[in-house]
């Protein structure tokens, strides 16, 4: 029992945590009678007539729990399903002090507890510029027009009824805010992977390739080399998209997300999907597409989402999210329970295509081992990686490094800052480091 006090990080909880930390201390102090009473209380809570002794095995096995001996809930008791009541801790959360106004703020996805590559729609990160609305789809319209009439044969208006009749595509893509990890350009600022990397999510989006609509309007692709996307919210968010991307067929006017319609916070009933490009270009509540012959220099490509370089110049129209990865388990703000085997798991992605390889280091980047990529490995989508680790109880620094199909290798903080300095906000894709100490506590550190 003394070990427990000396090594809090190695505390092995009893089944179902029936002792609180206070009670564990009481037992450790020699009050074993207290332990027996707690067992009795745990047994009583299950209304079991007999109390099994711990020596015979796990009470959760020896006594059939209530859910094994009673009638459960009927179908459709919750017609739009909800997570288990025991899943109340992983929520999207704001970072305190980041924004003064909720309508122009961001909430982060809880990457520390998610599995696979699809983000549950209800946990998808949010970034709004003037608050979100729940728009009546029967009143929503999409207009396609030109900066002038010479750029297309006719300006058109589409309803949701009409858009959903058109040939649809469904593809899995990540969306990452350009400011993801932006809090950490200068130094470590936030404790967990939710706040360092949680402005990313990945969904299966369903919609109409934008090219089909531009074709339908008779767009002159020789002259109209840029597209302006505009939203229907108060900010009427606008961003320039290069026509090359539209012509590739990747850019979609999407209404579906993970099998259901988009959630209102993510643009219901219509948003633009621009794979590989930062989230601000994925205009939500999309109401208008204008084709043009020059970039538009809208507020969020001329005042924000520009990258300040050491020489005082700003990079404008920065869009692509370069290859990046992060270990999500274990990660900052978590504590390992004991020495021994762990599956180290994380996410990798690239705005330039597929992830080819992810390497993991346990000594802060001196030595690396190649992780397993779990399928599916898709174009401009999150890719889950796993690797084995036996923790010997000594301090360690965990890192992951993504390589994409173009051969691009995710840079270190030192390499990124050598080019872009420390005053940038956007496009921080440096290698993340998590430090593990003897107690098992994991914290956020930066290794140059």
């Amino acid at each position, binding site marked *: 029992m003394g070990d427990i006090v000396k090594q809090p990080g190695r505390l092995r909880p009893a089944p179902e*945590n029936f002792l609180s930390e*206070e009670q564990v201390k009481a037992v450790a102090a020699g009050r074993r009678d207290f332990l027996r009473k707690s067992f009795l209380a745990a047994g009583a809570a299950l209304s079991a007539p007999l109390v099994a002794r711990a020596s015979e095995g796990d009470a959760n096995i020896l006594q059939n729990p209530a859910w094994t001996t009673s009638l459960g809930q009927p179908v459709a008791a919750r017609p739009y399903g909800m997570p288990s009541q025991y899943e109340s801790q992983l929520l999207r959360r704001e970072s*305190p002090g980041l924004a*003064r*106004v909720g309508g122009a703020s961001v909430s982060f996805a809880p990457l520390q507890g998610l599995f696979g590559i699809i983000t549950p729609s209800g946990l998808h990160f949010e970034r709004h*510029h003037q608050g979100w609305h729940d728009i009546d789809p029967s009143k929503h319209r999409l207009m396609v*027009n030109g*900066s*002038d009439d010479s750029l297309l044969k006719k300006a058109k*208006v589409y309803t949701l009824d009409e858009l959903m009749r*058109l040939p649809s*595509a*469904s593809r899995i893509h990540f969306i990452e805010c350009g400011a993801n990890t932006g809090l950490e350009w200068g130094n470590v*600022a936030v*404790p*967990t992977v939710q*706040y360092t990397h949680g402005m990313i999510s990945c969904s299966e989006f369903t919609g109409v390739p934008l090219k*089909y609509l531009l074709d339908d309007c*008779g767009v002159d692709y020789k002259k109209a*080399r840029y597209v302006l996307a*505009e939203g229907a919210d108060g900010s009427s968010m606008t961003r320039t998209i*290069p026509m090359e*991307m539209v*012509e*590739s*067929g990747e850019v979609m006017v999407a209404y579906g997300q993970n099998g259901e319609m988009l959630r209102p916070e993510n643009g219901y009933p219509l948003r633009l999907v621009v794979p590989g490009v930062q989230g601000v270009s994925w205009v939500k509540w999309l109401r208008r597409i204008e084709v043009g012959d*020059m970039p*538009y220099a809208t*507020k969020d490509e*001329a005042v924000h989402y*520009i990258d*300040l370089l*050491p020489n*005082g*110049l*700003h*990079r*404008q*129209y*920065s869009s*692509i999210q370069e290859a990046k990865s992060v270990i999500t388990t274990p990660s900052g703000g*978590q*504590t*390992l*329970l004991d020495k021994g085997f762990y*599956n180290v798991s994380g996410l990798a992605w690239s705005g330039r295509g597929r992830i080819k390889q992810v390497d993991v280091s346990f*000594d*802060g*980047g*001196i*030595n*690396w081992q190649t992780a397993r990529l779990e399928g599916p490995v898709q*174009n401009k989508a999150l890719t889950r990686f796993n690797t084995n680790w036996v923790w010997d109880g000594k301090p360690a620094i965990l890192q992951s490094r993504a390589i994409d199909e173009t051969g691009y290798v995710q*840079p270190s903080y030192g*390499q990124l800052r050598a080019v872009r300095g420390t005053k940038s906000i956007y496009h921080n894709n440096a290698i993340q480091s998590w430090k593990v100490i003897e107690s098992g*506590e994991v*914290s*956020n*550190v930066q*290794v140059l």
Partner: protein
Amino acid sequence: MSRFFNASLCRRGTKTLLVLAVAGVSSAALAVDHFSGVGRQATPAEVKAWDIDVRPDFKGLPKGSGSVDQGQELFEAKCASCHGTFGESNEVFTPLVGGTTKDDMKTGRVKGLSSGELPQRTTFTKVATISTVFDYIQRAMPWTAPKSLKPDEVYAILAYLLNLSEMVPGDFVLSDKNIADVQKLLPNRHGMTTEHGLWPGAAAAKGGIGNGGKPDTQNKACMKNCKPGAVIGSTLPDYARTAHGELYDQNRNFGPVRGTRTLGADAVAAPVAANPNLELATKNGCMACHGLNAKIVGPGYNEVLARYQGQADAEGRLVAKVKAGGQGVWGSVPMPPNGHLKDEELKTLVKWILSGAK
């Protein structure tokens, strides 16, 4: 048949589509043939109603004009609550003006951006195209009533901001005729570069902007003995460890790890009682400027209560004030009109404030 063939090909991804495009399969003809009955031509009035963007070459700019003086009046009434009377406030949003010099106007590069002298970047230290500012004010401002400004009002407000930035004199009238001259004075008009790999289009040499996607860092995938040691350059400051609350509660309480206890082992999450009034105030943005027991930008609700307590007509007067906005009672920063609140919601909130806002 070919329609469905094409649609299913889409699912296989970009490469297939690119091949189709290169091979000259005319999806344009395909689309037009098969999309009959879908969509309709937009009327000129519809296009006019929504086509509100203003480009750097001023295409889309509405006719109109407004003076610095008119702009000051409008700004104080509609903008100052968030931006400060002189556009300098950092309370709600980042400042609009400040940090630029007469010399910057000559060179077109804001020196403070490279010298490190600037404590804070402002809109006018960054923006290189005046159309951007006009476009944004017109489409998105004021915060609580976007698209309510007439073109003359947008010109006036912009004229006031230009005057605050010392680009134009106090008797200046900005209009569609002279805005191109103003562009030539913007202090950071030469401050942007598109020579980078983060624009996905073609390189500048091939008629696009950007560099065709060439990255600016070149890491190598070394595997063994890559460096002599791992030097930690930065760790989480103590205050930041607790600033995000109890991390134990932001992780599952089963699985390979637990959330680290940041507020101490004794900290038990206090049950949060449902508070529909506070939720209503938060939802409508009130809590951005007012604290329950402290001034933020506007007075704390305890201060409002102290001033109005016991006055028979307090409720009616406050409802009217919140609805129409007000200025001068609590300092220089005015409160904007709150037209987005329903009358019932207004009454509920005022009653709540007058009952102690608990």
